[in-house]
């Protein structure tokens, strides 16, 4: 990232957007008034994100989220869009990539290995919207209770639906992984007494 070109003058500022359009067939999202917003297809998404990160110094992944267009008045097309919001700390620019995801498939490639924080952002997006991230190492619920059924931020999730959720999630799987990374041995998986120095 250190050898990424400095984007200083106006022409340079367009370089990333030009590259997106020419190399990844991205189209500007005219409905989006954010700094810069482009629609790409799922198969080039990963390469486009890596190019933005490595060649154009977009070194911060601000957010990955999903948009549910169900019952949106001005929308006809796929039901979901997954959106990747990036920021460059050197130039201050922000850019957004959007990918359409159909209701039937509801899945997209994971980028957890491109940005570390994508791991949790993808878990959140899956938890709330039910869009699956292919290749994610640990796709489990992040915000909702582990026994929660459904994806509550989908537009067709019943607003008044309540569920009985009683299990206490000790989150031992993540704890154990961390402890193993620090040289502890896990004697009994999933047991609070199962870790030894």
């Amino acid at each position, binding site marked *: 990232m250190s050898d990424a070109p400095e984007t200083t003058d106006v022409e340079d500022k367009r370089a990333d957007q030009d590259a997106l359009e020419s190399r990844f067939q991205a189209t500007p999202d005219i409905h989006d008034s954010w700094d810069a917003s482009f629609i790409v297809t799922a198969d080039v998404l990963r390469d486009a994100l890596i190019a933005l990160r490595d060649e154009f110094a977009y070194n911060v992944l601000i957010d990955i989220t999903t948009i549910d267009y169900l019952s949106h008045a001005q929308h006809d097309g796929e039901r979901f869009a997954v959106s990747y919001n990036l920021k460059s700390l050197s130039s201050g620019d922000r850019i957004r990539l959007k990918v359409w995801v159909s209701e039937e498939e509801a899945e997209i490639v994971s980028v957890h290995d491109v940005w570390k924080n994508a791991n949790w952002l993808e878990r959140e997006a899956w938890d709330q919207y039910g869009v699956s991230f292919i290749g994610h190492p640990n796709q489990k619920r992040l*915000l*909702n*209770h582990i026994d*929660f059924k459904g994806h*509550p931020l989908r537009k067709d*999730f019943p*607003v*008044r*639906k*309540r*569920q009985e*959720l*009683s*299990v*206490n*999630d000790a989150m031992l799987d993540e704890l154990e992984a961390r402890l193993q990374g620090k040289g502890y041995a896990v004697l009994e998986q999933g047991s609070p007494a199962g870790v030894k120095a």
Partner: protein
Amino acid sequence: MSDETTAPASIPEELSQQFTNEGGFLATKLDTVINWGRSNSLWPFPFGTACCAIEFMGTVSSVFDLSRFGAELVRFSPRQADLLLVAGTITYKQAPILKQIYDQMCEPKWVVAIGACASSGGFYDCYCTVPGIDHIIPVDVYVAGCPPRPEAILESLVQIQNKIGDEKVSTTHVEASS
């Protein structure tokens, strides 16, 4: 006990009437003595999850001073506390933790739901918020407000004290259901 003719102010009337300097002893009911002790030495466990917990901090600190009511010994172990103060929004994910904390407290124990969220879910009418902690654990006193003023929290403490005063030592709060 002592040979003072006037009893300390915090002693209930029932007790203080029986303070005399004749004979140096005191006859009273066990319930009265134990309840007097319990109500003036509550050990709170603050289960703070949101903005209401900030108001609890104000209640404990010097301006409002919870210790005037004998409840300043804030404990962060449920084993050592007998007053559970639930201050803040309880989500479904948080609910099993609250239940477990309550179960870990020894009898006798009392619960105050501080603020709209703990009492009813507040304005969070949604998939993730428990609509009132009384769905999970029994509640003795509800405090209205979003957040309640420290005076209201102190008021709830006094109500708990009054409630304790009415109790029999043999009373149990919770019975095993099976």
